């Protein structure tokens, strides 16, 4: 029984290949059924996004498993043969396969490291697999673990917090001035692309009040309706600055549109409530002297770019920390997988019942001090025989089922019934314990993953 991954991603295959292999959501069920019908494929999950197409599976034999999954992927498109795919594919098994899944889920393998959509996509793929009963005890546990690892990476590292675009850097800075953006007003002056993008980021981060002004009043009206805001006459916008908490300026004007006095007056009108001014225009449209005004914070395009550069560097550091977490977590799963092997389970079971037997014997014989030696032996052998008979069937079944499709479930059950769990992996054991056959799903599983990760509805990242 081996965990494998076979697939291709933006790192190994051009878009022309990836788009041919991509499986649309509507045909996902059919594809999974086909995957599970290959001989030697016990469990499978199919992840198809615009940046990667991957199959994670539990197979009987690694080499034949690789081949079958590659055939399966090639089958998706008539014009592709399995051989044509080979130069673009990667194949991993065991720890490396698990580690690959964890890295993908944590967005360490993404085109834009730290983006959040991949987690939602994995969740969706998992839900579809559960619905079509394509996964079993092993993949259920490993995928759930991947989701929780991704969540851990997101909360314990700052990988997802780093703004790597200029327009998003503006939002990040605003959050250091205003803790709650939803009650804030954005004034958009001019219709430069970057400013519009920044306005959109602000709206996505909760800003509800948008005011727009451009030289062309018609244009302002259009933009205002697009952002759900109001238009302001260009001639009067200086008087309007005070009503805005965030001022985004991006026009083609060759001179300063906003002077130090304008800002000074606005801050006074606002009774010293802080203002955040972003000048994305080149040449600049806000007088740099505004920096000297208390409670007004001016940032120009260079400041934002500096911030982005810093974030890129920090993101690399955070990615390294995330990689170390992945290594740790793979170790946890490895331990769990090892516990599913039959020999250690039988040894542990034997040791467990012998411990119980010995403890009970000591207790009883301690009270029966005046037994003769033959009598003591009799009591001891009775205890042994009860214990042996009790576990006999379990031992036989474990050995007999070791190669059947349900073997893992039997081992897992035996471990739970006799409390043979390894404390180090108990958290994995809790998270997915319900599967008792290869193809299993329940509402509980789906609820479980909902709690683990936020839902993302869109299938394609917009980067």
């Amino acid at each position, binding site marked *: 029984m081996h965990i494998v991954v076979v697939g291709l991603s933006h790192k190994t295959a051009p878009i022309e290949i990836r788009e041919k292999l991509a499986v649309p959501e509507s045909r996902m069920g059919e594809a999974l059924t086909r995957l599970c019908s290959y001989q030697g494929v016990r469990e499978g999950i199919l992840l198809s996004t615009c940046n990667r197409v991957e199959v994670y599976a539990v197979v009987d034999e690694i080499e034949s498993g690789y081949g079958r999954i590659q055939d399966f992927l090639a089958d998706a498109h008539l014009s592709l043969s399995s051989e044509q795919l080979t130069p673009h594919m990667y194949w991993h098994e065991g720890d490396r396969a698990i580690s690959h899944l964890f890295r993908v889920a944590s967005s360490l393998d993404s085109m834009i490291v730290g983006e959040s959509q991949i987690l939602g996509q994995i969740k969706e793929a998992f839900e579809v697999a559960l619905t079509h009963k394509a996964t079993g005890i092993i993949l259920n546990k490993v995928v759930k673990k991947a989701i929780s690892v991704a969540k851990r990476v997101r909360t314990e590292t*700052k990988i997802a917090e780093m703004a790597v675009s200029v327009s998003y850097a503006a939002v990040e800075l605003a*959050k*250091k001035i205003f803790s709650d953006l939803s009650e804030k007003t954005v004034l958009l002056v001019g219709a430069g692309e970057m400013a519009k993008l920044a306005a959109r980021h602000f709206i996505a981060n909760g800003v509800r009040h948008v005011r727009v002004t451009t030289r062309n009043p018609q244009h302002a009206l259009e933009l205002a309706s697009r952002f759900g805001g109001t238009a302001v006459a260009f001639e009067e916008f200086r008087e309007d600055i005070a009503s805005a908490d965030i001022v985004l300026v991006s026009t083609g004007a060759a001179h300063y549109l906003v002077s130090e006095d304008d800002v000074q007056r606005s801050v006074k009108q606002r009774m*010293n409530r802080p203002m955040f001014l972003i000048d994305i225009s080149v040449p600049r449209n806000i007088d740099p002297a505004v920096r000297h005004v208390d409670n007004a914070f001016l*940032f120009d395009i260079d400041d934002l770019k500096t911030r982005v550069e810093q974030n890129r560097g*920090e993101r690399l550091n955070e990615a390294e920390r995330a990689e170390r977490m992945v290594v740790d977590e793979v170790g946890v799963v490895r331990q769990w997988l090892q516990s599913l092997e039959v020999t250690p389970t039988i040894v542990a079971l034997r040791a467990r019942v012998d411990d119980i037997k010995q403890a009970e014997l000591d207790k009883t014989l301690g009270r029966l001090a005046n037994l003769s030696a033959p009598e003591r032996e009799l009591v001891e052998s009775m205890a042994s025989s009860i214990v042996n008979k009790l576990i006999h069937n379990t031992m036989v079944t474990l050995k007999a089922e070791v190669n059947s499709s349900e073997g893992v479930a039997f081992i897992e059950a035996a471990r739970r019934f006799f409390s043979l769990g390894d404390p180090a992996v108990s958290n994995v054991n809790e998270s997915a314990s319900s599967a008792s056959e290869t193809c299993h799903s329940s509402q509980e599983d789906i609820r479980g993953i909902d709690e683990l990760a936020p839902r993302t509805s869109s299938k394609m990242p917009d980067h």
Partner: protein
Amino acid sequence: MGAMFFVVTMALYFAATVSYLAYLLWPTEALSKVSLGITAVGFTSHSIALAARMIGAADVSPPGFHEALSFSSWVLILVFLVVEFRHRLHVIGSFIVPLALISLVFAAALPETAPTLTPVFRTLWVHVTLSMLGTVGFAIAFVAGVMYLIQDGLLKSKRFNVLYSKLPALDFLDHLNQQSIVTGFPLLTLGIITGALSAEFSRGSYLNWNPEQTWALVTWVFYFVVLMGRLTVGWRAKRAAYLTIIGFAGVILTLIGVVLKSHGPVS
């Protein structure tokens, strides 16, 4: 027993201070949990020390400055724990915990039962408790002010360092500043009134313009003006931060005045 817990508390607050200061400069978040853990244990120990003192002596001896400072240190940590749990704002510990430690160290430097003229213990307990609660309010406002000025400075100079990423948003700090004064001011007012009452009982006059009382009144007027300025003419943000820092200096001077008066100048 109380004395032992007091020493343990001081050691733990010291460890927490070191840990929180390291957290402030280190890019990782992990230290915040360690620091919070130490603080929480220290707080428990502190509570036991205070309770032991209350049970042992509340009715037979008046509160001295030792108790007052130890109590205000305890309330500081309590407020910090509440803010931490509500807002998950670890960095505030880097500012409040050292302040609580300083307060506790001064408490340790003073004898447990201060020589006091007053036989009216209960009024005095109320006076001391209220004044200290008011002081804690101003201390939190001071901390918020310091954090505000640091973050303001970092934003203005565009230094996006570790401190910048750990400090919260400016308007949160300004709000914390306001809330602390709004809470602290009425408490101080009541503290002054009960103080005047106990002075009347013990000395026969509400106010005799000794340095302690004078400074207390000056402080009161100052915070009154600060509060009114904020509500009417917009003394918020940077100005409020400066004013609350200055105001807290006044509070500290008052306290030193009180201590010197009771224990005599250090020779």
